[in-house]
């Protein structure tokens, strides 16, 4: 019987709903096209290549591919059902998880090995083929990973991949001058600087030979900004003008020169890490593993530790947002699995920064960029599909909108894990096998590390399409379960170390694990998705869902059994330990690379970089006093601002209940609409000790990254305290996303942010335990214009909740209760506020708010004390939009009204360190006494009439009107 490609279509039975078609049709109305489809019918398409007879095909179509209750199957292609037919197929080599699952199901059902590809067919009513194609390209697929067909596609055979040039020959760099080194580095996608290329040249001259291709690639991966963070670890000379230098001279690793320049040796170590070390020396004894592993680890209780990591996946998400976000969360989850001897992931977080969707017509979006609406809906879908499939609740996040993210959106993915305290560290041993588990290696994701370290341009989608990937969550889930079973074996953990294959693939994972011992790798042992990969491609591929373990030979048999049960592929790639601490790369009998671990890990030349800071002057008043909006208009406009508007549309798509651990959910209150300050979960089933998760993001204050950073730390702490976290048990993470830092003022801003992390961590006694930076976040358009992102620092935090039965939520509880404003002063400084973004500022109000970390820490302790004593009925931090917005959110969330009595000018400033607390009038004296050394004032009373009133500003507006404005913006 000849091998042929069979085609099966599955669509809803006549009379059944087609929700996917209806959703696509709804979404098509937002694309700004002249004509839009009036109706879309969808079908799943399966192409099956294999030796199948008619009966077998009918059996597959009828009982595997179609649901007999609600679907029908067609063999071949049904005739067109509408004016235009479009099919969306994955391009060859793109991960198709459904196809893999169908292949194994067919193997189980019929004992046949077949190849499957899946696709979707769309029959569009009321449009011609050209329009249908536009709908498809803008909505239903992405040309980077999909092919579009104007009619049902039924190929005669599947395309096969192309063979790479074999071997790993020598690259002659000995005689290259600087220009030749620079152009070679760029053309080979190494993205190494000239001094770095020179260091490599010198090393090989010393050895008297030229490097092989695989050696150069290994160095490029290991030395990439993404992997080694050379900017944050560099020596930096910082000058500030005008005025005296800042008082940082006493900080660790800082030197001040007579001319006022401050030299900082290793910025990261001298600020963020230094703060943690200072706090540990000062008695904080619950940091168990910081800045050394894939995630930071703190003590949870006497038996358990929790770990937390946040990663970014910006450049892949710019090109293919669905796959970029999904593999972003997938990679961060693997960081947690790869921490210590593996932790179980228990919660995820996600924060996105995109351009304002409403402001960009499709034609205005620069070539090479996707529309922000598409980016946001696809990154949400990516996180949803990966996180939900992994069974990890996505519990906390934020979205920030700014038009400078148009070419380079930001996607932050975080993950938290729990593990036994004795499992927090692992170390490979000499003789351990190098074992790869999980997904197969393909050409996908090659050069991800170097790609993410470069700047985006309009041609990046073509040049780096191969760096974009689709994840397969189920592979990662089975991998997780197999690893945890191996970790928890009754006789002890079956491996001595574990790490994930992330950026740089095997090259980074094995290179890091074998750093002290050396390693010998047989690259032909890696299982491949398809043939034709060169050894270098195998070595640096960033194919997803792979982990590397160091396994003592005597444990191999049991590990193989566990992997067989879970259907996880295991391959033995070699062993750790060489006589001279070198990394030996072999392919069959051939040695194709040999690198000294010392040069690989310590040979990177560190440069001194110049940073400067000149304060940005406050712009003169941009509006006259009589142009001020009414309080009512401002309130409604701010509630509808996408930064502030309800994110219910996103949150409801994430499973935030899975694992059954939720205590405070992301949405609270009777209607399930109130935006929680933080989420609280129970990491250990049966224990009432909780973990709160929150973030702080104050990008509005970017005019001075020092202020921005302190405000973000303060916001994160307040969010945690508002749900009942213990402010003496808060750990923080920093994630910097910056544009290129070659300009001294940009680097100066980065220095100020890092220095503020030092001050903030010490003031709040909240150590940083891990962090990451992503630089070069900017986009160069075809006409050479560079759009740099706003400097963005995400602060993520976890805090211990001693007993979750004391937790508080932000929804107002009872009419007649008082609303108390407590904490820092309300100054009326409008700089960087959302009000200023919408309306500009009046004279003398454009300054950034002052941040007083010591006062903020005092406020956090005082509020936590009140919550502990049960005196707070609801609590909410006063942040984006200001006091009036926060008060409105509490009333809306609780289904109540509120009568406010406050100075109208205080409504919209975003001064930090302020809390809104709902207090029973009977408790007011006790609360007032406890807050005696903080600013505190009764600003209102909750009412039963569902209106928000503010007599001073003649404001009287129904809560439901506020609610419509707030829910309407992002109701996608």
């Amino acid at each position, binding site marked *: 019987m000849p091998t042929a490609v069979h085609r099966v279509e599955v669509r809803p039975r006549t009379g059944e709903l087609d929700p996917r078609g209806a959703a696509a049709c709804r979404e098509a109305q937002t694309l700004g096209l002249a004509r839009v489809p009036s109706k879309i019918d969808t079908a799943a398409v399966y192409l099956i290549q294999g030796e199948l007879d008619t009966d077998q095909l009918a059996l597959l179509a009828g009982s*595997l591919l179609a649901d*007999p*209750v609600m679907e029908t199957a067609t063999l071949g292609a049904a005739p067109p059902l509408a004016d235009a037919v479009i099919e969306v197929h994955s391009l060859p080599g793109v991960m198709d*998880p459904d196809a893999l699952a*169908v292949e194994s199901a067919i193997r189980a059902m019929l004992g046949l090995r077949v190849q499957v590809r899946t696709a979707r067919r769309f029959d569009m009513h009321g449009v011609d083929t050209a329009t249908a194609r536009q709908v498809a390209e803008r909505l239903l697929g992405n040309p980077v990973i999909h092919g579009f067909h104007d009619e049902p596609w039924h190929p005669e055979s599947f395309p096969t991949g192309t063979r790479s040039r074999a071997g790993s020959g020598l690259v002659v760099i000995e005689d290259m001058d600087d220009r030749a080194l620079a152009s070679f580095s760029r053309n080979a996608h190494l993205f190494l600087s000239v001094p770095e290329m020179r260091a490599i040249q010198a090393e090989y001259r010393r050895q008297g030979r030229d490097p092989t291709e695989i050696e150069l690639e290994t160095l490029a991966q290991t030395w990439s900004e993404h992997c080694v963070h050379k900017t944050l670890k560099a020596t930096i000379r910082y000058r500030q003008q005008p005025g005296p230098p800042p008082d940082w001279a006493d900080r660790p690793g800082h030197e001040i020169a007579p001319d006022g320049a401050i030299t900082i040796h290793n910025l990261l170590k001298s600020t963020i890490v230094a703060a943690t070390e200072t706090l540990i020396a000062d008695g904080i004894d619950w940091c168990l593993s910081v800045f050394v592993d894939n995630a930071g680890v703190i003590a949870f209780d006497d038996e358990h530790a929790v770990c937390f990591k946040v990663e970014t996946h910006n450049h892949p998400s710019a090109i293919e947002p669905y796959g970029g976000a999904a593999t972003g969360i997938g990679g961060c989850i693997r960081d947690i699995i790869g921490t210590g001897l593996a932790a179980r992931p228990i919660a995820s977080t996600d924060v996105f920064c995109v351009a304002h969707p409403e402001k960009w017509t499709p034609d205005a979006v620069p070539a090479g960029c996707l529309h922000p609406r598409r980016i946001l809906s696809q990154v949400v879908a990516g996180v949803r599909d990966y996180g939900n499939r992994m069974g990890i609740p996505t519990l906390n996040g934020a979205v920030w909108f700014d038009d400078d993210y148009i070419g380079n959106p930001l996607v932050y993915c975080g993950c938290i894990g729990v593990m036994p305290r004795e499992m927090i560290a692992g170390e490979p041993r000499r003789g351990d096998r190098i074992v790869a588990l999980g997904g197969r290696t393909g050409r996908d994701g090659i050069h991800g590390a170097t790609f993410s370290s470069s700047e985006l341009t309009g041609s990046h989608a073509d040049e780096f399409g191969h760096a974009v990937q689709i994840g397969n969550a189920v592979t990662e*889930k089975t991998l997780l379960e197999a690893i945890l079973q191996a970790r928890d074996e009754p006789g002890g953990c079956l491996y001595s170390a574990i790490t994930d294959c992330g950026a740089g693939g095997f090259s980074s994972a094995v290179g890091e694990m074998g750093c002290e011992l050396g390693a010998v790798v047989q690259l032909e042992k890696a299982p491949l998705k398809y043939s034709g990969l060169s050894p270098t491609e195998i070595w640096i591929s960033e194919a997803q869902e792979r982990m590397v373990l160091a396994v003592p030979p005597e444990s191999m048999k049991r590990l193989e059994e566990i992997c067989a*049960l879970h259907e996880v592929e295991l391959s033995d790639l070699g062993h750790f330990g060489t006589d001279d601490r070198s990394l030996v790369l072999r392919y069959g009998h051939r040695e194709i690379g040999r690198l000294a671990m010392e040069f690989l890990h310590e040979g990177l030349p560190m440069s001194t970089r110049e940073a400067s800071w000149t304060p940005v002057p406050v712009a003169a008043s941009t509006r006259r006093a009589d142009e001020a909006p009414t309080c009512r208009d401002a309130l409604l406009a701010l509630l509808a601002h996408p930064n502030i508007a309800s994110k219910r549309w996103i949150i409801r798509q994430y499973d935030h209940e899975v694992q059954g651990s939720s205590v405070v959910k992301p949405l609270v209150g009777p209607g399930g609409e109130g935006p929680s300050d933080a989420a609280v979960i129970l990491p250990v089933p049966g224990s009432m000790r909780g973990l709160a998760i929150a973030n702080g993001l104050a990008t509005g204050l970017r005019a001075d990254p020092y202020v921005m950073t302190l405000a973000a730390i303060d916001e994160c702490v307040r969010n945690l305290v508002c749900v009942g976290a213990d402010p003496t048990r808060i750990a923080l993470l920093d994630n910097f996303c910056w544009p290129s830092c070659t300009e001294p003022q940009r680097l100066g801003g980065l220095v100020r942010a890092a220095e503020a992390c030092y001050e903030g961590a010490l003031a709040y006694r909240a150590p940083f335990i891990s962090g990451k930076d992503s630089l070069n976040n900017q986009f160069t358009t075809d006409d050479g214009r560079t759009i740099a992102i706003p400097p963005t620092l995400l602060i993520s935090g976890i805090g211990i909740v001693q007993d979750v039965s004391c937790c508080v939520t932000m*929804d107002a509880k009872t009419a007649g209760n008082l609303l108390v404003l407590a904490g820092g002063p309300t100054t009326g400084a409008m700089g960087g506020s959302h009000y200023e973004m919408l309306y500009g500022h009046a004279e003398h109000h454009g300054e950034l708010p002052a941040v007083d970390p010591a006062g903020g820490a005092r406020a956090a302790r005082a509020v936590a004390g009140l919550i502990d004593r049960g005196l707070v009925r*609801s609590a909410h931090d006063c942040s984006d939009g200001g006091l009036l917005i926060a008060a409105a959110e509490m009333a809306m969330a609780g289904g109540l009204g509120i009568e406010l009595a406050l100075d109208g000018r205080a409504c919209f400033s975003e001064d930090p360190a302020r809390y809104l607390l709902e207090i029973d009038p009977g408790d007011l004296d006790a609360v007032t006494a406890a807050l005696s050394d903080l600013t505190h004032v009764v600003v209102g009373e909750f009412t039963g009439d569902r209106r928000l009133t503010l007599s001073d500003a003649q404001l009287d507006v129904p809560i439901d009107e506020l609610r419509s404005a707030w829910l309407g913006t992002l109701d996608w």
Partner: protein
Amino acid sequence: MTTALVLTTSGINCDRELAHAFELAGATAELVHLNRLLAEPGMVDRYSLIGLPGGFSYGDAIGAGRIAATLMREALYPAFVSAIARGVPIIAPCNGFQIAAQMGLLPGPAAGEPWPAVPARPTVGLAANDTARFVDRWCAVEIPDGTRCIWTQGIELEDAGRVLPVAHGEGRFTVGPDLAVSRLAADGQIALRYRPGENPNGSLDAVAGICDASGLVLGLMPHPERFTRWTHHPQWTRLEEPRGETLGLAMFRNAVAWAKQQVAAV
């Protein structure tokens, strides 16, 4: 010892909380991988309770639960039917419900009819939500009068406590051409409904869960294992004390109590 078999396999991800719910209700629970069970279907005889947990088995490729049901249908049907004959309560939330419906366990034969020797062709299905979107929310639910379901039998709760969480993309209950939902209702096989205005996915007749004619096998889209303590409740910070037992835990207690008294040993 009353022990629950909690099935797990590729993509199942609610197994541990389902096991925990059985334990809170007084049983012990063991996670058993499908590949082990397929190798030795007779293992089912050792257990007096069964849970088919939620998740995305095999990625929910093709359709939710399709591949798991395909693997289990012929191989495990006899073992499950014999467990039902012994009086073993079976719960199948979410992905478990999708699997149970496709492997012929639900709605099962009409009252008084025997289980067929081979699995019946599916007559109920869980289709894509009417919004075409995954939804996570809590829904107010009601237990229809006269249901045969042993899991939801005799549970008295205040209004605020009659809620359960849902989290799924394919949960719209529907019936095929050969079955009328009125027949299920008349026979007491509707175990749970969404209350008016609370239907999260466009389910036919607001059906949230059904049982077989014996009342032992419960398939439902909501997750009772995610409502076993009051701090699970989405508005627990607003509720007055004391609150009694949660709806989820009450269901598991019903089944464990039944298993302790009724299940016959093999």
